[in-house]
């Protein structure tokens, strides 16, 4: 198994470097120049030149690429001038927040996707089955930013001011301003309250996708002989479905992890902007607008490596769950 892992990792390195190179040239060949972003009245020409030198932007493209590649291999991702901090510090600030949000969204999506998919498969052709299908497809076809705005409107604003519901959710930020003074229990509740709307906005689209795959996969498995054997052994329907059938139906779902991670990261660009979530997706977009080359490249480098890692984890997970697969 470890030989397989090594082979996959070695294969991933050129892949991720390739992506970073594409982004490097895409960003550097484009018109516009970062120092202009700092202009304000009275900035003389020498000042402009001075800033360019300060940020090392006066070199030709290929020199900068060679220097950037060399630095990156030694782990130095350069300096982000829109945040005026080393790029790694910026990533250290934002990447965990995106991972936290993505992990919750993925967890919720898979949890409810599998539950709903299984329920639909067990209750095939019933009214609830087709009802779920239509509702799920409705969410699957919705742009996540529109869903996010609607959630804010309803579960945050109307819930509190118009419908006066007992619970309503904060519309932005990771924690409330009183977070530091709350008890541990209070802090967890506060964090979760802040996570509900962004996670829902990201997860609903994925849940719909996963539920559809799960339903198909479950229907396939329920027809198998070993499920009938399990019933013939006298096991209850719940054990048959949730132990014997579910384990086998989950196998194809695992590969979805690799498929959905890029979609998830793409979604964070909107969700983090709308919910003021200090995450990587939003930072990259802002970095692109401010021509913060090092941050854009480092960000896409990490995004790409996380996606490759996710695919690798999905394959390893697949081998763990399905004994028939053995990677040599």
């Amino acid at each position, binding site marked *: 198994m470890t030989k397989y892992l090594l082979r996959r990792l070695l294969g991933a390195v050129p892949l991720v470097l390739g992506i970073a190179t594409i982004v490097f040239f895409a960003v550097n060949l484009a018109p*516009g120049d970062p120092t*202009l972003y*700092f202009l304000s009245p009275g*900035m003389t020409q020498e000042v402009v030149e001075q800033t360019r030198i*300060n940020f090392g932007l006066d070199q030709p493209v290929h020199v900068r690429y060679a220097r950037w590649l060399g630095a990156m291999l030694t782990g130095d991702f350069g300096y982000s001038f829109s945040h005026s901090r080393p790029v790694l510090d910026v990533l250290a600030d934002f990447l965990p927040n995106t991972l936290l949000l993505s992990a919750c969204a993925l967890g919720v999506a898979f949890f409810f996707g599998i539950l709903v998919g299984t329920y639909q498969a067990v209750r095939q052709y019933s009214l609830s089955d087709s009802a779920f299908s239509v509702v799920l497809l409705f969410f699957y076809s919705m742009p996540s930013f529109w869903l996010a705005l609607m959630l804010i409107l309803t579960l945050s604003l109307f819930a509190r001011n118009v419908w006066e519901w007992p619970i309503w959710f904060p*519309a932005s930020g990771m924690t*409330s301003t009183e977070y530091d003074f709350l008890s541990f229990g209070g802090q967890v509740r506060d964090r979760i309250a802040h996570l509900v709307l962004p996670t829902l906005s990201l997860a609903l689209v994925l849940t719909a996708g996963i539920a559809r795959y799960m339903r198909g996969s479950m229907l396939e498995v329920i027809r198998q002989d070993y499920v009938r054997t399990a019933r013939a052994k006298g096991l209850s329907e719940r054990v048959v479905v949730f132990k014997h059938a579910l384990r086998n139906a989950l196998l194809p779902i695992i590969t979805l992890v690799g498929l959905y991670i890029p979609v998830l990261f793409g979604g964070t660009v909107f969700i983090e902007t709308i919910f003021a979530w200090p995450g990587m997706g939003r930072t990259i977009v802002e970095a692109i607008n401010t021509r913060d080359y090092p941050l854009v490249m480092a960000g896409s480098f990490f995004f790409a490596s996380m996606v490759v890692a996710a695919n690798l984890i999905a394959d390893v997970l697949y081998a763990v769950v399905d004994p028939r697969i053995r990677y040599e």
Partner: protein
Amino acid sequence: MKKVLAIAAGSVLAACGGGDSTEVSGDPFCQAVLPRVAAYMEQARSQHPTPSDPRYGGTVVIGSIGEVADGLNSAISADHSSTQHQQFVGLMTLVNYDAQLNAQPYLAESWEISEDGRAITFHIRQDVYWHDGERTDANDVAFTYEVVTDPLTAFPNAAFWDHYVKEPEGVEVIDDFTVRISLEPHSEFLDPFRTLGILPEHLLRDVPHDQLAQHPFGEQCPVGNGPFVFVEHRSQDRWVFEANPAFPAALGGRPFVDRYVYRIIPEQTTLLTELLTENIDVYLAPRPDQAQQILDDPNLELLAYTFRNYVFVGWNSRKPQLSDARVRRAITMATNREEIVQAILLGYGTVANSGVPPFHWAYDDENVPTLAYDPTAARALLDEAGWRDRDGDGVRESADGTRLSFSIKYNTGNQQRQDVAEIMQAQLAQVGIEARPQVVEWATLLQQINTPTLRDFDGVVMGWVTEFKLNDMDLFHSARIDQPYAWVGTHNPEIDRLLEQLSVTVDREEAKEVWREYQAAIVEEQPYTYFYFPDRLDGVNRRVRGAVMDARGEWLNIKDWYIDPASR
């Protein structure tokens, strides 16, 4: 089965619960500085217990779409909210302006100007301490002056210090609390000292000036001497400040609120929701069409006041269609700017005829001619200038056939500038002018209009935030035609003369007369079609009391804000 559900639910919660991202910045400078600040604050709290007045206590939360881009590092800051945090929150400036824009003592107890007007001597207060216990003295002021006037620092507002003698000769420390700065006599010479936050010399003296921009002091661990002490900054999320118990009693003592939090929320719909659901107390600069919601909510109050930024369309006089001043005047007359103020700003704004803001002492709208909305006069002016619609396609052409058609560029993401371009397109069409709105990405647009050899634009929708010392030299003076901001390429000796005179007239009454002449010349030349001075709007929760906001800024008297004890 129950076990399966439990594990799944547990893992989901655990993943959501963990991942705390408050962290003390890893930078060695910060790790050295922050403990000293904490220690001194501990000591200060015991020395200056909170007075029993009920107004003390509580937290005020301000929400805005933008990050405090340069933090408290006044050596590199160009961003409006950064300068305000330096002036009124974390640092101190030598002087402050009162409501009539007259300089008042602040860090400088008093100051005198030499007879020949070539030097100012400031006397520094002796009861102001940095948040790490060091006393603020003249060396800090001298150090800060040297930093901002050294070209190596690339201080964005370097133009402020045009008429001051550069370091090191320009500044002299006489004794611990007295410093003299030499300058050539010019108008509003105190204004730069109102905007410049004084930096701690004992912490930054050995940082090379060209490295200041990348120094962690600004955003990760600023140490100031102002009413609020820096606690924490989570990038793109929030800034947290605490009241500074050691703030001099003579200047009002520690602020009423215990904590001030500044939250960054990029989406304006979310910001409004957070204000309406009382998660934030102040929503900075909501859009005019969100004002109605704030007015309808009993808990909220809408502050609206004229501000010192204005929106305009600059015309590139190098282009054949726009080289003739009559054409530029006709364009302005064909645009119903009053209606635009009503339409886009819902009335929260005043039509502008020049770069002088309404609250400014130089503002005078009685005897300065204005170009009112008058399409027929515009058509006549265009005919007179030789532009007639010869082929009946609805667009005028010059004698040699060039069509009176040009693009109006604006940057992506700015809704108001997009609105201006789109409305002009519709209104200019009625007088036979074809204006094509064209969106350009922000940095690309700057490069196109700032590069002297390029100047790749016809019309561009832009906006300036002026300081109180108005200075159009960089914009219209023909000597500076190759400077980044001389977009419109004006060649007008009359305007050059008036500009030079303005920059050296010290006395305000005398200057008013020159300003009137200058504004008349600008209307004649019409390099810009000045659109409006948008009112600054702020949504404030009624639980926040004592807040005064005007053209000088929103954080003006934040140290005097207090939270209504009942709703804390």
